[in-house]
């Protein structure tokens, strides 16, 4: 029986890694790209989509009861009674 909150913590760690990668990538783009409309549009699109996904996940996560437990390896029913 694994507390569901462990998966939330793992997800938060992954989101943290995503955030670091996103910041580094955005920094490289802003530093080295050419100041054209395409650069601004691609940067804005990436930020908006990422933020939307994170906000949507956040709103859903707020509705979940994370004190539950998960049984990942439940006994398998063979399908017949002796």
């Amino acid at each position, binding site marked *: 029986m694994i507390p569901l909150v462990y998966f*939330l913590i793992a997800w938060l760690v*992954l989101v943290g890694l*995503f955030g670091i990668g996103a910041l580094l990538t955005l920094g490289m783009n802003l530093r080295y*790209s050419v100041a*054209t409309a395409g650069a601004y549009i*691609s940067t804005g699109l990436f930020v908006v989509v990422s933020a939307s*996904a994170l906000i949507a996940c956040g709103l859903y996560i707020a509705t979940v009861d994370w004190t*539950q437990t*998960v049984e990942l390896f439940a006994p398998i029913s063979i399908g017949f009674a002796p």
Partner: protein
Amino acid sequence: MMDLHHLPNQLPNEELVYFLRRHPITLTSLFFTFAIVLATPIALAWYIFSFEPTWWQSTTGQPLAVLLASAIFLFAWLFLYQQYLDYYLDSWIVTTKRILNIEQTGLFSRTVSELRLYRVQDVTATVNGLLPTMLNYGNVEIQSAGAKVRIVFEEIPRPNDIAKRVLELSERERREQLDTAVEEFGMPDDADTIEDNRKK
């Protein structure tokens, strides 16, 4: 960000002629890869809805599915953006004085090389394949004095037009350099002898 009207180490009277990138069709494989990666959680969701609906309706199954799908999407989205950046930051800039070759390899590796136009000796345009022929994109190889090709414009649109224009610009720049040198230093004393030897 780099301003095209204020290039690094800008030379006097230097004007921008071309700002080149790969043809956008080269991004097709990237978007296909992204679509396949995104299809994985979608296929998983379809399987769960079809064969394990009670798992999705449970109070623990749904949050797990949402966490997994969101993690896959976020990293696929970041990967797509990084690969797009790898395409977007590769560029070739042709001005009236020089050629700049900017290559981005990965996220933290960048090479910028420069070739003065008057050093350009040979320009070769190549278009290979059905799609490049139909969409008119290919490579332009620019060579200075020496055996090794210095700069290659890869998969750019209208390679033949670009090659022709680069040659014209290099010839004009060589003439201007020669005129400037003659104005500054005058003709050499043995100019006639040099010319005679050249004709022989």
